[in-house]
């Protein structure tokens, strides 16, 4: 009997708790949902983007005279969860627009749901061209992989005067495969020649076989649009083998770990990127960088900057639409012109892909240094 009494007391207590526990709630707000990988394999991206979003929200907390509320939902870096998250944002939280996801695969799982519900979504960093293809309500704040690959090819031909390129591709990443393929197409079109194509996989430690093939082909440049770990290890081994041609890579290299792992070997490594502090000229960017560095005591990163841009683009679109109706916001987003964003000037092009300039950085004295900007 004692057990039963305890059970009763416990259930009464729990019922009482349930009465008091209620989600923080405010009337008459504009809700913008964010579904990001806050935990799981790519949690680092989600967290960087959430940091950026919060700064952006502090800078522009209102639209149409109403308070904006950001609702964060975690996706565990997983497709099934990403789809659930978007469904939840739309139906339970009744958001008017959505920001996310950080990676392309998960965005493709979330997109069809917001598309069906006619809720506009802006992904900060989903660069796979398929993400917005054929979708009316899907947008992004970053440029797409083909574009970055093309710009890299142009930079290699025009600035580095390279004729022969060796390409090393991480085939486990859609991002690397996309960049490399479009680099090759553009490079050949511009009169260059690809003398060697070799493949690696995320997590590889030894690149001797691939680099030997590169060495035999004697290129003027190595294009290795892979992530920072592979880039750093590969650069080290390349220098050890006596390959001293410049290495060009993509924005996946932009992490402090690149320099930590690569040390001297990554000096003079060039990479195409979305953002560099020095290249940020707009008022919004200056304010963002100041606030970001004051709050987090570290340099503003590209992920955060793009997430902030996703937010600013949406707020701008809501203001111009003068309404929180999904279709109206969508139309306003699609007609975005010369928006002075954090990561540069953004004009929304075809298929919800922005047209914006690419920043080229390089590693110098253990730091990322701004080299030039390539305009579309």
């Amino acid at each position, binding site marked *: 009997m004692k057990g039963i009494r305890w059970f009763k007391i416990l259930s009464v207590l729990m019922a009482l708790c349930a009465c008091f*526990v209620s989600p923080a709630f405010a009337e008459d707000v504009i809700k913008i949902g964010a579904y990001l990988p806050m935990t799981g394999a790519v949690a680092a991206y989600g967290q960087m983007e959430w940091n950026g979003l919060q700064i952006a929200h502090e800078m522009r907390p209102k639209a149409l005279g109403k308070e904006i509320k950001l609702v964060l939902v975690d996706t565990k870096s997983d497709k099934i969860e990403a789809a659930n998250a978007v469904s939840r944002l739309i139906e339970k939280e009744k958001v008017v627009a959505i920001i996310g996801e950080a990676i392309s695969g998960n965005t493709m799982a979330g997109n069809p749901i917001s598309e069906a519900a006619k809720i506009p979504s802006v992904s900060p960093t989903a660069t796979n061209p398929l993400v917005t293809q054929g979708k009316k309500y899907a947008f992004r704040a970053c440029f797409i992989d083909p574009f970055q690959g093309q710009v890299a090819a142009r930079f290699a031909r025009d600035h580095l005067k390279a004729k022969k390129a060796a390409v090393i591709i991480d085939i486990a990443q859609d991002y690397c495969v996309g960049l490399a393929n479009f680099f090759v197409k553009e490079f050949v079109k511009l009169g260059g020649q690809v003398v060697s194509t070799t493949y690696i996989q995320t997590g590889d430690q030894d690149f001797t076989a691939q680099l030997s093939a590169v060495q035999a082909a004697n290129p003027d440049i190595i294009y290795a649009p892979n992530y920072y770990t592979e880039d750093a290890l590969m650069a080290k081994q390349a220098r050890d083998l006596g390959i001293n041609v410049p290495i060009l890579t993509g924005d996946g290299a932009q992490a402090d770990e690149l320099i930590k792992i690569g040390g001297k070997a990554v000096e003079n490594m060039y990479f195409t990127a979305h953002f560099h502090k020095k290249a940020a000229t707009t008022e919004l960017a200056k304010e963002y960088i100041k606030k970001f560095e004051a709050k987090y005591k570290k340099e503003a990163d590209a992920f955060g900057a793009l997430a902030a841009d996703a937010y600013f683009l949406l707020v701008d679109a809501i203001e111009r639409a003068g309404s929180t109706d999904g279709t109206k916001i969508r139309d306003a987003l699609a007609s975005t012109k010369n928006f002075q964003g954090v990561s540069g000037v953004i004009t929304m092009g075809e298929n919800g892909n922005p047209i914006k300039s690419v920043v080229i950085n390089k590693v110098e004295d253990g730091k990322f240094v701004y080299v030039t900007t390539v305009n579309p």
Partner: protein
Amino acid sequence: MTKTRRNLILNCASLVVLFGILWLFQEYGTEYQIRILNNIAVFITLAVSYNLVNGICGQLHLGPNAFITIGAYTSALLTMSPTEKQMSFIIKPLIWPLSVIQVPFWISLIMAGTVATVFAFFISFPVFRVRGDYLAIVTLGFGEVVRVLCNALQSVTNGPLGLKGLKPYTNLWWSWSIAIFTIIVIQRLINSSWGRAMKAIRENEIAAQAMGVDPFKHLMMAFLISAFFSGVAGGLLAHLITTISPTLFTFFLTFNLLIIIVVGGLGSTTGAVIGATLFAWGGEALRVVESPMDIGPIHIPGIPGMRMVLFSVILMVVIIFARRGITGRNEFSWDWLLGKLSFGSR
């Protein structure tokens, strides 16, 4: 009234009730609720078929993600429209017969199961040459091989770019009918002489062999049937989330299924169903703990990842207090339920 007859009537009645509930959700439920119900059904199919090899046969098989992958890609490639395929395969075009084929959803599901079974047939020869940890390693390796192949075979799978734009064919009727069909087939199998032979192999393979049970034949049978339903569930999953890529089918998927059947009760179909339901529904229900809350005057900011912490605690509690999982090796039966309600006819 005989017991069999009573059970049959009760089974049919509960099916009618279940589909009635599903119909209510279909009519009045939100998209979100329907999505979770679909997830539950897909995970039930996966867990029940996985449990056949792990729970009933007692072989630590760690490669169901391979069969789910094969099923998902097979059915996705079969239902995508030729124009969608042409648009998606931007790096290498899709190889010929696949690029023009488009079949109805149900055929693609059958094909998904069949292709997964064919792969399972070939892999079963090396797999069942070994037992225990070694079997786990071989199947784990197979799971990884399939995933790597999906990355590498760009002209078939579109590599790491993945496939998108699948039609959302998976609805409550499809997912739940297949879940129930899987439960019935696997339950019938377990209660047959083959099923008893499988259990005998689990308890003591040498003794079973001495009694005239052929382990290879029975294990392969379980493996193939399990692979078939995993493949079908893979097809359902693909058409539920409408996009697939190799990252969806990592070892974590297997790991989740393993958690489901161990928590539910290894060797019990009922346990697998309960485990799958708790997993698919619980994950969403626990999102509450991640949102910002006001308890009286205290404001708690949302902490992403809290539900994983809570989930782990629940798992530990279950394993500490119910070492064999929620149901152990017991199955649900009407006798048990009526006995509990204490008006069982005798």
